[in-house]
């Protein structure tokens, strides 16, 4: 598995003046890495550690705290779709929505569809309770969702 591209490394270096410590670049760097490769490979962890003058284990320690980052054995699909299961969504059919979406796409939460188009995830409150049940597609919220709408998004038809 390849590590960070030169372009990604430069993006990280460009952010250095913003923070008084290099370690503070850890989260921004992990975001840049995952955006580029749909996962954070072990080589990318080493590359980030080199850039920030830290041990790879320090990067990995932070990475593993957040359920957000995927390793190279579990890369994300083209789109990452988070279905909210917290209280406001549960009260308006969030659990049923998630169940139907998983059944129709033949995945369990955390898995990617066979065609690689979508990864379905469980989310805790997405902050769009006014539009429950809601989902997050990559980093864009979608309110008042139906299973048909989510499946369309997952299949890349919407």
């Amino acid at each position: 598995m390849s590590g960070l591209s030169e372009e990604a490394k430069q993006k990280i270096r460009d952010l250095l003046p913003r923070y008084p410590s290099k370690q503070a670049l850890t989260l921004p760097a992990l975001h840049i890495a995952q955006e580029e490769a749909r996962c954070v490979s072990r080589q990318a962890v080493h590359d980030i550690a080199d850039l920030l003058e830290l041990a790879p284990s320090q990067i990995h320690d932070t990475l593993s705290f957040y359920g957000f980052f995927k390793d190279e054995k579990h890369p994300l699909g083209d789109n990452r779709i988070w279905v909210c299961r917290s209280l406001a969504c549960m009260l308006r059919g969030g659990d049923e929505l998630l169940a139907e979406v998983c059944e129709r796409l033949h995945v369990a939460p955390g898995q990617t569809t066979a065609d690689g188009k979508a990864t379905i995830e469980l989310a805790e409150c997405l902050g769009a309770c006014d539009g429950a049940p809601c989902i997050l597609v990559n980093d864009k919220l979608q309110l008042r969702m139906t299973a048909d709408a989510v499946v369309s998004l997952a299949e890349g038809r919407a």
Partner: protein
Amino acid sequence: MSFEPVLLRRRGKPNSQSLESYRADGGYTALKKALAMEAPKVIEAVQKSGLRGRGGAGFSTGLKWTFLPKDVQGPIYLCINGDESEPGTFNNRVLLEDDPHQVLEGIVISGYATKSTTAYLYLRYEYGDCYRTCEKAIEEMYANNLLGKNILGSDYSLDIYLHRGACAYICGEETGLIESLEGKRAWPRIKPPFPAIEGAFRRPTVVNNIETMACVTQILDRGPEWFQSIGIASEHPKDPGSYGPKLYCISGHVNNPGLVELPLGVTARELIDKHAGGVWKGRKAKAVVPGGISMGFLSADELDTKLDFAGPGKAGCLGLGTAAVIVIDDQTSMVDVLYNTCRFFAHESCGQCTPCREGTAWSAKILARIRAGQGTLKDLDTLTDISNSIGIMPGTTICGLADGAAWPIKNALKKFRPEFEEYITSGRRSQSFEVVGSH
């Protein structure tokens, strides 16, 4: 007298996010006023207004600023907490999506008052639209001398940087946020030292909420007396009162979920009936979350509770929290509701303190067992025991996440105990289900 919204007054206007439209509505005059004042006078004005932080704890904003050491050499950091993740809460999202300059103006004013050199706006990853809106607004500010060196010709200089989170509730705890900003796992710190003395990068730091920043802008614009004229006055010398307008989030089983701005102290009943179109499907409310799920539950008999800083506590809830109201109708099982809150906290416990890590996990497991029809009455005592032994209040954890996990359990078992007992003794199973996945 009808109340005119202030914080949301620009919502829905065409192009409300742009600097041009914000300025056309009088934007950045508050900043000009502030820069013409001595910094301590700005702090004084905010203290005088009675503004209490809108993030959940309700601590006096001006007073927090005075805790910074005097005559600091070197940087002071301002961290803006945009990690809004408390279930039911979305007011910061609306503010940043629709009127980012109102918040950013408040950040520059607060930065000036506290003599901060850099502001980090820590934004939860899920708010991608907010991120892009703020990114554009900040660019406009730099291009118009509202950020950077010598803002509006003054001696004051400030940079604001956006910093994106990675989907962890605990980053909303102020020292968890600081650890996360520093690139570490978001484990809250033992206090003292408080952030004002030793915060981000071991420097004096202020952490403030997004809505608080919007309030600061309006206080400088309209004056502390205006802010003090709204809300519920202090009831006794030790009560700091509940002043100003507040954004209330309403969700769950109501006809019109949404965000409304009202004077602090509206009752839960008025919010539901007058501002959210009533409970849906002609049903009645069984329970109402007063301010995000960590605050617990009001029962149907307690809907006349005032939602000011003191009100929910009088009804046995933890507090006003984020003023995010979730309505639960009379057809919903409180066992399912409590399972949902317990599972949330088990998922979001950062794992640093054993009582929280284990207590939240056990309570979720016990509720799952009850939902599977295998609960015993003794389980309810065990749940009560857990809820009484995790948190800052019993003194067993570093941060308040566990208190927030405990409160829904305490309230549910006190106010709805017969329902739990009936559920267990009748051998019922949950009608709702759960999809299990690896996350």
